[in-house]
C-alpha cells in the first residue's frame, strides 16, 4: 500500500498557533478552514481511492497572501499541499495530516486579454474552459482540452502539464503557456516567461510546467490563445482488428495529414458507450476510429475526402462522415462519455494513462488481454491514437475485498508493459502518488536524483507537496554531496579513445 511521509508531531502540536497565524494573513471569513466537516471535501482529489483530512485548508485571495503563507511555512518548517480544482487523477493534491492545503480557487479572475499578442493573462483558479469562454466572442479559444475542462483549473493544468484530445496538432499545456507568476517556498515572487517567446537563463517555465506542485505555487498564468478553426468535421471508421485501425492511423499521418483529433476505442469500450449514449457506433467492429479535421471549410472538405479514401484502402468496414455539427458532437459524445459509460457497467473503474509508440498498439492490446485473464478483471480501452496515449479502464468492485489491490496490480502491470515497449508511465495525468512507486520502471536512481536536484534548487527543505512524484526522498545533503576523491579514483587517467 501507499506510504506517505510520517506526520510531524511537532507541527501537529502547534496547530492552534498555525491557525492563528493563517487567520492573521487571511482575515476574510472562510479563508481558513479548520473544522472536520468543512475539511472533508478536501480529503481527496480525482483519485478517490486515497483519502486524508488535511491539517487545515487556507484559501488565499492574492499573491501577497500566498507569499506570506509560504514564508511562514518555510520559517516554521510546515508542509504544504497546493490544490486547484481537485480534479487530478493521480493524487497530486492528496492532503497530509500535518500539512496546510492551499486551495487556489479564489484566484478566479481573467486579468487581461491581449488580442494583438494572442495571449490571455488569468489567475490560476480560472477553469480551462473558462479561458475559452472569455475569448470566444472574438473567435478565439485555448487549445489544450483535458476531459475535465469544465471543472479543472489552469493552475492545475500547469502543475500536471495537462493534455487532451488535440495534443498531436496543438501540443500540451507546456507548448501553450507563455509565462507564470510563481511564489517560492521562501516567499519570493518570481515572474517567469511572458508575452515574448524567449527567456534569459535556463528554461524555468518548461521545468515548472508539469512539476506537480513541488516547486512553488503559481499565482498568475499567461497562455497563448488561438483563432478557433472555421469549421470541424469528423469521421467514424470501423475496423475488424485494432491492428488495422492502428495501420490506418499510421497511413493518415504518413500522408502528411495531422488531424485535430484522432481517437480509437476497442470493442468493450464501443459497446459500453453505445449502450450509454447511443452515439450510433457500430457494434460489430473490433476497433473504432474517430478522426476530426478542423480548419477552413475548403480544407476540411478536402481532407475528409482524403482520409475517407485512406481508410478504405486500410480495410475500413464501416465509415460515416458527420454532415452537421450536431452529428459531429454526437460522434464525440460516445468517446467523451467513455468513463461514465464504464462506470455504468462496473461498480468501480480505474483509469490508467500510459503512452506507447503507436506501432506497438496491437501488441500492447494483446498483452493487456492476457493480463486481464491473469488478474481476473475486465478492461476497456480508449486511446488518443494520434499521440499514443492509452487510457485502459480497469473494471472492479471496491466493495469486494481484495478487488482494489487486484486492480492496482493489474494497472501497474499495464504501465510496466507500456514502458517495456518504449513508452512511458503517464501521458497526461501525472505521477502524483498513483504512479510514484513505479518511477523506477522508467528511471534509474541517478535519473531521479537529477530531477530531485531541481527540487532542491527551489525547495531545499522539501516542504512543497512531499510524498508526490518521487518514490524515495533523498536528503538534500545526499543529493548535493560529491565525493571528489572517489571520482578521481574512479577516473584516474586522461582517457584516450
Amino acid at each position, binding site marked *: 500500500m501507499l506510504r506517505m511521509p510520517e506526520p510531524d508531531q511537532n507541527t501537529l502540536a502547534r496547530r492552534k498557533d498555525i491557525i492563528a497565524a493563517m487567520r492573521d494573513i487571511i482575515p476574510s471569513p472562510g479563508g481558513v478552514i479548520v473544522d472536520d466537516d468543512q475539511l472533508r471535501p478536501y480529503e481527496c482529489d480525482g483519485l478517490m481511492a486515497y483519502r486524508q483530512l488535511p491539517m487545515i485548508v487556507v484559501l488565499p485571495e492574492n499573491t501577497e497572501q500566498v507569499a506570506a503563507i509560504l514564508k511562514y511555512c518555510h520559517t516554521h518548517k510546515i508542509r504544504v499541499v497546493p490544490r486547484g480544482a481537485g480534479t487530478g487523477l493521480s493524487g497530486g493534491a492528496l492532503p497530509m495530516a500535518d500539512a496546510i492545503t492551499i486551495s487556489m480557487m479564489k484566484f478566479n479572475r481573467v486579468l487581461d486579454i491581449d488580442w494583438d499578442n494572442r495571449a490571455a493573462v488569468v489567475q490560476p483558479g480560472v477553469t480551462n474552459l473558462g479561458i475559452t469562454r472569455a475569448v470566444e466572442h472574438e473567435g478565439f479559444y485555448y487549445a489544450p482540452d483535458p476531459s475535465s475542462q469544465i471543472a479543472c483549473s489552469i493552475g492545475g493544468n500547469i502543475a500536471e502539464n495537462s493534455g487532451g484530445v488535440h495534443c498531436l496538432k496543438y501540443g500540451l499545456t507546456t507548448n501553450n503557456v507563455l509565462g507564470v507568476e510563481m511564489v517560492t517556498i521562501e516567499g519570493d515572487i518570481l515572474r517567469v516567461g511572458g508575452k515574448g517567446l524567449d527567456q534569459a537563463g535556463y528554461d524555468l517555465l518548461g521545468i515548472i510546467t508539469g512539476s506537480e506542485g513541488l516547486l512553488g505555487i503559481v499565482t498568475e498564468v499567461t497562455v497563448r490563445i488561438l483563432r478557433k478553426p472555421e469549421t470541424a468535421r469528423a469521421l467514424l471508421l470501423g475496423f475488424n482488428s485494432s491492428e488495422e485501425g492502428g495501420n490506418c492511423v499510421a497511413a493518415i499521418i504518413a500522408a502528411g495529414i495531422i488531424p485535430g483529433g484522432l481517437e480509437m476505442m476497442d470493442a468493450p469500450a464501443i459497446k459500453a458507450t453505445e449502450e450509454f449514449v447511443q452515439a450510433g457506433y457500430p457494434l460489430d467492429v473490433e476497433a473504432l476510429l474517430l478522426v476530426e479535421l478542423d480548419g477552413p471549410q475548403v480544407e476540411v472538405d478536402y481532407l475528409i475526402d482524403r482520409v475517407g479514401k485512406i481508410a478504405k484502402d486500410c480495410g475500413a468496414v464501416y465509415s460515416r462522415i458527420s454532415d452537421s455539427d450536431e452529428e459531429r458532437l454526437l460522434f464525440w459524445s460516445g468517446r467523451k462519455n467513455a468513463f461514465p459509460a464504464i462506470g455504468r457497467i462496473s461498480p468501480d473503474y480505474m483509469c490508467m494513462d500510459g503512452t506507447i509508440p503507436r506501432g506497438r498498439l496491437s501488441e500492447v492490446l494483446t498483452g493487456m488481454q492476457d493480463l486481464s485473464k491473469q488478474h481476473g478483471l475486465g478492461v476497456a480501452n480508449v486511446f488518443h491514437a494520434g499521440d499514443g496515449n492509452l487510457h485502459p479502464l480497469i473494471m472492479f468492485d471496491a466493495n469486494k475485498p481484495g478487488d482494489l489491490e487486484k486492480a492496482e496490480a493489474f494497472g501497474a502491470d499495464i504501465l510496466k508493459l507500456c514502458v517495456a515497449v518504449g513508452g*512511458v508511465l503517464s501521458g497526461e495525468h501525472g505521477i502524483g502518488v498513483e504512479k510514484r512507486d513505479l518511477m523506477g520502471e522508467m528511471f534509474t536512481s541517478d535519473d531521479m536524483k*537529477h530531477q530531485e536536484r531541481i527540487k532542491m534548487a527551489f525547495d531545499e527543505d522539501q516542504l512543497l507537496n512531499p510524498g508526490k512524484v518521487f518514490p524515495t526522498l533523498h536528503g538534500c545533503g545526499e543529493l548535493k554531496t560529491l565525493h571528489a576523491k572517489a571520482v578521481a579514483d574512479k577516473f584516474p587517467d586522461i582517457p584516450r579513445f
Partner: protein
Amino acid sequence: MVDVLSPTTPDQLRDAVGWALGSETPLEIIGSGSKRAFGHAVQTNAVLDCSQLSGILFYQPEELVISARVGTPLADIKAALAEKNQQFHFEPGNFPALVNGGVGPDAGTIGGLVACNLAGPRRIKVGAARDHLLGFEAVSGRAEDFKSGGRVMKNVTGFDLSKLMAGSFGTLGVMHTVTLKVMPNDETSATVIVACSDPRKAGKAMTLAMRSENEVSAAAWIAPEDAPHLDVPLAGEYGSGLVALRLEGPHPSVAWRADALCRALAEFGECHEVPESHSHSIWKVVSDVAPFVASENTNSLLWRVSVPPASGGDVCADLIEKTGGRAMMDWAGGRIWLQLAGSDAADGMAGTIRDVVTSAGGQADLVRAPSEMRNTVPVFHPENPALARINARIKENFDPHGILNPGRIAPVSQNGEGA
C-alpha cells in the same frame, strides 16, 4: 597545450567527464564547433569534442520521431527527413553562418541545435527546439548518466528536464543522445507580400494577419535595402521593404486563405500572392537571416532581440533610430535582428539597445561580436536576480565543480564563477 577528448560512445563520454571532474579540469564542449563564437569565449585547457558521437539511432516517419547521437551533422538529419517528406517543424535556419563566416549550408550538429534552442520563422506557430525535444540522454557535471523524457509525443512522467537541457549551452550536462518530434511537410505553401518600408506599419500588418483566422505560419518584415536578397521578381519592382506572410497546408485551403488574407490586409496596400517556389526561397532567406550572415558583413555586430510580437514594429523602429543599424523582423515582430557597424560604441550599444528592449518587456542577446567585446559585454540578456539565484542553484547541483563550459553564459570574471 589543449587536450582534445573525442569520445565515440556514451561510456567514453562518461569517462571523459569523470576524468575532468576528478582532475578538476574544466571542459569546453563542442560539436562541430560551428557556433563556438556564440556566447562568451570559454577558456579551458581541455576540449570535449562530441562530433564523434554520431549517427541516427532510429527514424520512424510514421511515428513522427527521430533519435540521433548529438554529433550527427544537421545536414545528414535534414537529408534523412527530406527523403521521407518530413521536417523539424520549428524550422531552424543556418544560425552558424551568422557567427562564423566559414561554414556551409545546414552547418552544425543536432546536439548544438538543441543546446542553443534554435528556431526559425515557424516558431510563432509551433515553438522552438524545446517544444520538439521528446527526450535526451546525458552525462551531468557529476559524471553521472541521466536521462529524461522518451520517444513518445505525450509524456508527463517526472520533471520535464528536456526543456531545461534545450538552451542550456552544455552547462548542466553533456547530452549524447537526443530524440525529437518531426512533422510532415505541408502539401503546399504560399506567401502573401505587401510593400511596406515602415517597420511600425509592418508591425501592425503582421499583427492583423496573426489575429485573422488564416493560420499564418510565419510573418516577417524585410527592409528596403535587404529586399533584393529575396530573389523574388516582385520584390525588385516594389523598390520598398516587404511584409511577407506564409500560409501552409492543402492546396485548396492555401488558395482560399491567401485570398482571404489579401482582403483582410487591403488597408496596408496592394497584396500579392507569391507562388510556392518563390515562397520557399523567401523563407529560406528569413530563417537563415541571409542579409546579415557573417561572411558578407565583416566587422559588423549582430543583436538578436525578443519582444512581445505586437510591440515588435515600434521597438524595431526605435532601435533603428537610436542605433543607426539595419534590422529585420521575424515571428510577427517577436524577433528582431539588428546589425550594427563594427565601429560603433565599444559596448556594442548594449545599454541603448537593452533599455529599449527591456522597457518593452523583452530581451536582447549579442549574437556576433569580436571576442574582446564579448569579454566585457554580457552576451545574454541579464537575468532577473530572483531567477538568477535559482538558475545558479540548478547549475551548482548539476555541475558542482563548474567543469562544463565555464563562463559560456556569463563571463567567469564577472561573478567569480562559471555559469
